[in-house]
């Protein structure tokens, strides 16, 4: 166990620092932006798509189970990323519009 910690210490550092950073960054968001923020965070955890690409790219071409599951993973992962960013953008577009109410 101690061995494992020292082997992976840089990852453990990242985890700890990111936890604090995440809390720090969110703590200042006004409540009006909570929905876009949730949506934006949703898009960012779409980074899991990278794992899906690696799975897909490593699968041997005769391992159909891995190919199919990996393919599904790439599709749903892309859905998460693309959908997440587009929805967030649509929400935020409206915030931009209201600063200039004369222009329609």
């Amino acid at each position, binding site marked *: 166990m101690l061995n*494992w910690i020292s*082997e992976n210490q840089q990852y453990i550092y*990242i*985890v700890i620092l*990111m936890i604090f950073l*995440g809390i720090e*960054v*969110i703590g200042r*968001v*006004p*409540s*009006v*932006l909570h*929905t*876009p*923020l*949730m*949506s*934006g*965070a*949703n*898009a*960012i*955890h*779409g*980074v*899991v*798509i990278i*794992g899906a*690409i*690696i799975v*897909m*790219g*490593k*699968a041997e071409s005769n391992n159909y*189970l891995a*190919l199919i*599951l*990996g*393919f599904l*993973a*790439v*599709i*749903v*992962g*892309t*859905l*998460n*990323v*693309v*959908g*997440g*960013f587009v*929805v*967030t953008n649509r929400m*935020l*577009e409206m*915030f931009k*519009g*209201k600063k200039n109410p004369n222009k329609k």
Partner: protein
Amino acid sequence: MEGNILTLIYIIASVTFILGLKKLSNPAKARNGNLIAAAGMTLAILGTIFLYKDENGNTLHNYGWIFAGIIIGAIIGTLAANKVKMTAMPEMVSMFNGMGGACAALISIVEFNHLSETFTVPGWSEVPWNLTGGMIGHTLTIYAGCLIGTVSFAGSMIAWGKLNGKIKDFSFKGQHILNLVVLAAILVLIVYLLFDLNPANYKLFYLIPLLSIVYGVLFVFPIGGADMPVVISLLNSFTGVAAACGGFLYNNKVMLTGGILVGAAGTLLTILMCKAMNRSLKNVLIGNFGGSNATSSQSKTGGNYKEISVSDAAVAMAYARKVMIVPGYGLAVAQAQHACHELEKLLEEKGVEVKYAIHPVAGRMPGHMNVLLAEADVNYEKLLEMEQANDEFKTTDVVLILGANDVVNPAAKTDPSSPIYGMPILEVEEAKMVIVNKRSMKPGYAGIENQLFYQPKTSMLFGDAKNVLQQLISEVKNL
């Protein structure tokens, strides 16, 4: 060389994620922040496809499959995100969140299959099979990613169904105990496989995703619609943690950074939302708020309410000095934000000061009302947050409540037996006159009666919010 470039790309992407989240804290910069994070993500994806090399220095293959998957996902994602109505945004977020969870779970399953292939090779028993510390760490991330990802997927799908009305609340006696039993079974299974994975029992792994689906469904099912935003936010942070498990699995720091960042931020956001409703997270998750047990205060219904005609309401507002509009879910369902803005402009032309009082949890998500009103070009300065609005109600002549209920229920302040007791509310009863637009006298999402409706200064204006607003507009025009 390529590996170094990829490392650089991952670092840049991590920074863009943090910057993106940070910029979301400012309405003017938020859009930029989103675009920056999206650019970082694109860079990271392209970098992974073309530059990634595994431990043995092999590049990725199956480009056809990868691009086909990305193109299909991108087309569906763009179409779905562009077509969805503004009111349906929360369930869309939930849906995409579920997709991320599914992705993490699928990765774990494929990786486990890869791992267990050694068991199917003939003569495996001659290979000494021992679990080292590193091996345990590796399998732990697979199990955890699978569990969290699947729960997030199943839960998000239920939340999605609940928000768009396809799935009704459903709970039965002892459900929480069953939930705990299922969760305990999964954890026991994980611990067992962790320390005693062998060729004879590895197939038990597939029970983890199956049980996790059951758990995810049971976990979200009894939670009332009013609490859905909190649940989605929680599941959002779950998916973040599941993505981080993937980061451990592939020693991929950008996945780890993004995942943990969202996991931490999402958890805090969940807590902030709970605070806005003055309820603890535990209460949301195992309480039965919004369910069938809110009977304690339901008994003292009754009293008389008075109705007001559209023309009277129009007169009252047109000759007021200050009108405060309190939007709620009713406004969102009726898609009445444009009509609302039109009424506001008309009243302003008549010299009436019009403002909006936004409760933090009005609608289905924090900020939901702001997003809707912003869509209708309502000026940002007119939206008052709860504290500001409560200061101004004393000097307000008419409060127009559009489909909001629980957020203006005085029981939250006066009735300790009420399930929403202690929740901060908009103190509309401070104003001189209150006009409540609702479709019927039915209680709101929390399932409790609202004494406000029976107060002498309150008048009820029944009807669909959009319809009523349009009538009000034509009445005000004729004055």
